[in-house]
Each structure stands twice: as structure tokens, then as C-alpha cells.
């Protein structure tokens, strides 16, 4: 696994957030490299929104430190204007229409681009005369996405931005994000559990589960961690023998197996000789398997050391 040497936009060290009965984050240490698109992945309730809230200074940690662009963000007007985090369940002023929300955002962010915003408003077909509170889930998500994109904040969080968006609007969001990011590079943290859908966008994966970081790795390295082989069952079995199987499906004499680890040059030759197909690994599948494995190992470890109780 390679080390991400790019300078950090966000550094989080030993971060915990405990509520009365739950631990939302538990000793999270992670860094988000500058000017990259990061996928913050995890199941519902894993702690994704809490982590983004604390980084964006909307919430604060019970323990630990956060630095954004070298500054502590809490109540810090030096760094806050460079961040944008519209929550998935964002509340807007009571009578506000979308145009009021955009106008307010344009006043808050000095990089706000009205031309881009207006294009997005047309693209997403955001109704101008409807109050935001009366909008459908998808329309609300579109308002949040437009603020996030047009603000061009140095550090932008998107909190499950696909909620309620149809397939066309989701694709539109991914396309516009990539287009604008290539022209105006910035640090983007995209929280999602639709892993495969954002796999082509993200350069780095941070996976959290039960408030802990399970994985923090460049997508490229992650993909190299496993390989999928398709072909005659006996031939697939020969090449994959002795490896940890992440997934296996058989249909008649054809088997599709995903195993951990890279193939050596000799194994590649053998794959060609046996006429097997090498397929890209589904990031989602890989992450699901790794999560399950690591969660199980961690739970086992916790119960062995007597740390399991009292955390949840």
C-alpha cells in the first residue's frame, strides 16, 4: 500500500465523539489530501455525517484534534469561509425559495460563480418559485448540490448528495463535479454508500464503520488488492488455489471468483494459457468484503481484550 504524500487539507487526530448513550466516533485518525476527491464510505450510522460535521465545525469532538488547511476550524473565520458542508437534512430559512438560498450562499462564499450556479439551476430544473421546505427530496438535494458546487469552497463536503435524485440528475452531478474539479481543483469529500456509482470519481477511499476508520487508501491501490477471474471452474480453481476468496459464483461449468492479492507474472501467463478472463474488481464488493472481515476481526479482538462492552 502506498502512502499518500500529497499535502493534507484536513488532518484529524484521535477524534472521538460520544453522545449520552452512543459513541459516534471512536479514536479516528485520518488525513484528507489536498485537491483530491475523497470517498467517505460507510454504512448508515457509521459516523460519516458526524465526522464531516466536526471537521466543518458544526459540531465539536469529545476528544481529539481537527485541522483544516492548517487551522483549527471551530469559530475560526480564517478557515470557515473556505469550507462548505450542506447537510443531507439541511434546514433553510422558513420562507426561503431556492433563489434566496443561492443569494445567501453567494454572499457567504467569495469564489461563488453565478454563471455556473445558473447553469446548474437549469440542469437540475430547480423550481424558482417554490419554497425550499415544500420541495421534493430530490429538489432539496439539487439545491444542496448546487450550493456545494457553485461555492467553489477549498474544502467541500457532499453528504449523500444522491438522496432523492433520479439517475439522470445523479449522473449530471457526477459529470459537473468532475468538469468543475478539473478546472478548479479543490478538496472534495463525498459521503456515500453507493460505492460503485462514485468509484470512478474518487481518488481515495476512507471507510468508517462503527465510528472507526477501517480503511484509508488510494482507489488504485485498493483495486490492486484483489482480482476477479472468470472461466472454466477447474481452471479458475487452479489459479486461485491457496488464496483468500472474497466472492465466488458458479453457473454450470463457469465460475467467477474474486480473490485477494495480486497475480504474479507467472500467474498472468497461466491465466492466458487457461483462457481465463481477468475482470476489474467491483469496488463495492471489495469494500463490503473487507469491511465484513475487518469488523469481525476487530470484534473478536475487542472481546478478547474485554473492550467490547460499553461502547455501543
Amino acid at each position, binding site marked *: *500500500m502506498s*502512502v*499518500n504524500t500529497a499535502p493534507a487539507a484536513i*488532518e484529524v*487526530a*484521535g477524534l472521538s465523539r460520544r453522545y449520552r448513550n452512543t459513541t459516534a466516533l471512536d*479514536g*479516528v*485518525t*485520518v*488525513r484528507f489530501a489536498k485537491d483530491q476527491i475523497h470517498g467517505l464510505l460507510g454504512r448508515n450510522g457509521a459516523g460519516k455525517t458526524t465526522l464531516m*460535521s466536526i471537521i*466543518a*465545525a*458544526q*459540531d*465539536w469532538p469529545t476528544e481529539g*484534534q481537527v*485541522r483544516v*488547511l*492548517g*487551522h483549527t476550524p471551530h*469559530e*475560526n*473565520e*480564517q478557515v*470557515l*469561509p*473556505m469550507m*462548505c*458542508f*450542506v*447537510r443531507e*437534512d*439541511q*434546514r*433553510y*430559512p*422558513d*420562507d*426561503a*425559495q431556492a433563489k*434566496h*438560498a443561492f443569494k*445567501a*450562499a453567494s*454572499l*457567504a*462564499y467569495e469564489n461563488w460563480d453565478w454563471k455556473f450556479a445558473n447553469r446548474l439551476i437549469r440542469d437540475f430544473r430547480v423550481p424558482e418559485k417554490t419554497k425550499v421546505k415544500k420541495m421534493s427530496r430530490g429538489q432539496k438535494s439539487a439545491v*444542496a448540490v448546487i*450550493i456545494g458546487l457553485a461555492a467553489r469552497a*477549498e474544502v467541500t463536503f457532499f453528504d449523500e448528495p444522491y438522496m432523492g435524485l433520479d439517475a439522470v440528475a445523479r449522473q449530471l452531478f457526477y459529470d459537473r463535479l468532475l468538469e468543475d474539479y478539473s478546472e478548479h481543483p479543490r478538496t472534495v469529500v463525498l459521503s456515500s454508500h453507493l460505492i460503485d456509482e462514485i468509484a470512478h470519481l474518487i481518488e481515495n477511499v476512507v471507510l*468508517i464503520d462503527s465510528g*472507526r*476508520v*477501517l*480503511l*484509508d*487508501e488510494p482507489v488504485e491501490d485498493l483495486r490492486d488488492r484483489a482480482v476477479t477471474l472468470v472461466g472454466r471452474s477447474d481452471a479458475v480453481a487452479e489459479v486461485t488455489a491457496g488464496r483468500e476468496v472474497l466472492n465466488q459464483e458458479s453457473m454450470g461449468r463457469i465460475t467467477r471468483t474474486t480473490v485477494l492479492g495480486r497475480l504474479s507474472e507467472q500467474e498472468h501467463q497461466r491465466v492466458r494459457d487457461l483462457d481465463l478472463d481477468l475482470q476489474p474488481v467491483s469496488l463495492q464488493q471489495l469494500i463490503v468484503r473487507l469491511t465484513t472481515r*475487518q469488523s469481525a476481526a476487530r470484534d473478536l479482538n475487542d472481546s478478547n481484550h474485554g473492550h467490547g462492552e460499553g461502547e455501543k
Partner: protein
Amino acid sequence: MTTPTGRTDRTLQPQEPHRGKRSAFARVPSAVRLQFSPAVTLIGVPLSVFFAAWLIAVGIGWWIHTMQGSGDSSGEPMFTGAAQAPLWALVFVAAYSASHTFPFSMALSYSRRTFMLGVILAFGLVSVAFGAAFILAAWIERVTDGFGMHFYTFNLPYLTQGSGGIVAAGALAATLCLVLMMVGFFWAILYLRAGLFTLWVIILGLAVVGLAGTMLIFQNDGWPVIWEWIMQQSALSLTGWLAILAVGLAGLNYGVIRRATPA
């Protein structure tokens, strides 16, 4: 970099400054404008209530006047309490600012301090506008002898006939407006900060304290003293007391919002 468990401790090193230092108050004007977006909440609604309440009061006055027989302009003056109607509208508008505009301000990455300064300035502007409207309305009533019917909503003798006249009454109206808006904001932001249970505990606690205070005053025959104190006050001195209260409430609100979360 991979930290599979996320347990590795790392010391955070400050980086190079990323751009020139900006003023901590640079976004205060934007935070003020945020309160007026949309303008209907903080301007349209109270203004409508102001004129609607006045119109209804004058309508009732006209009805009473005609019932008593037209042409009789020497009757006893009548006073109404309709001037306070916009204040109650503003209490709710102020509460909305805490419950809705505050979470939105977090999405726009305002610090709580900047947001609160925006709130104080915006509420201050609205209060001054209310005070000015009060003065104007009291003046109209004065020069028209209560629309020729001796019917007064704003030109109330206790407020307008002391030193400073209707201007002092306007100042009192403005500070009362600011205090009430701060109170409306306080309860809503307290709810965001502490939740419903704590909110009710505090409400009940205050009720108990209020009740105990009232009983103590009764026990010590204190009411005449308090009543006398109130009667001795002028519009200007009341303005002063309310101004102190408004400053206290602004500080209290900042104390509460510092640890309030938007959701």
C-alpha cells in the same frame, strides 16, 4: 497512507498560511443580510401586522364612534393595545431565525459569533424601524386628534407625554422590540442546544422561581413599592432599563449558541 484501525496518533503540524489574513468580522454584513433573506419574514410580515392591527383598531374605533352618534368629537379619548401586535409577530420571526436561519448559516460556514453579530444587528435595525414607525404613527394620531375620534393606538399618554415626548416613546418601543426578539430567539436556540426535556425543565424552573418571587413580594407587602417604582419611570428611563436587559439577553444568546448544533 493506511491506518486500518485509525488508531495511530499523529501530531498535527500547522501548515503554511494559505492566504492573507482576513478580518474576523469581514462576513458580518453578509450575516446581517442573511437575516433578511427572504425579506418577507423580517420586514413583510411585521409590517403587514403593524398596519393590519392599526387598521382593525381604527375600524373598531370608527364603529364605536358612529354608534355613539356621528359629529360628536368631544367624547372621551379611547386607547387600544394594538401597537403591540407587531411585537408578537417579531417574537416568532426571531425564534425562526434561531431554529431555521441558524442551521442554514452553519451550511454557509459562518462562525457562531459572526452569525450572532448578524442577528443582533439585524434585530437592532428592525427594532429601530419599529421605533420610527411608532413615532410616525403617534405623530399622525396626535396631529389628527386620533383621526378626529380621539382614538389612539400609539399616542398613549403614559408613553408620549413624559420628557422626550413621542420620540422617547419610540425609543421605548424600539428597545422593547429588541428585548422581545432576543427572548424569542433565546427559547428557540435553547431548544436546539439543550433539547425539549431540558427546555421544559428550565421553563418549569423559571415558573417556580417566578411564583416564589411573587409569593415573597406578597408576604412582604411589596406590591405598592413595585407599582410606585413603575409609575415613577418615564419612557426614557424604561428605555434605559430595557437596553441593559437587551444587552444581557444578547450575551446570554451568544453563550447558548456557542455550543448549539444545527441538527
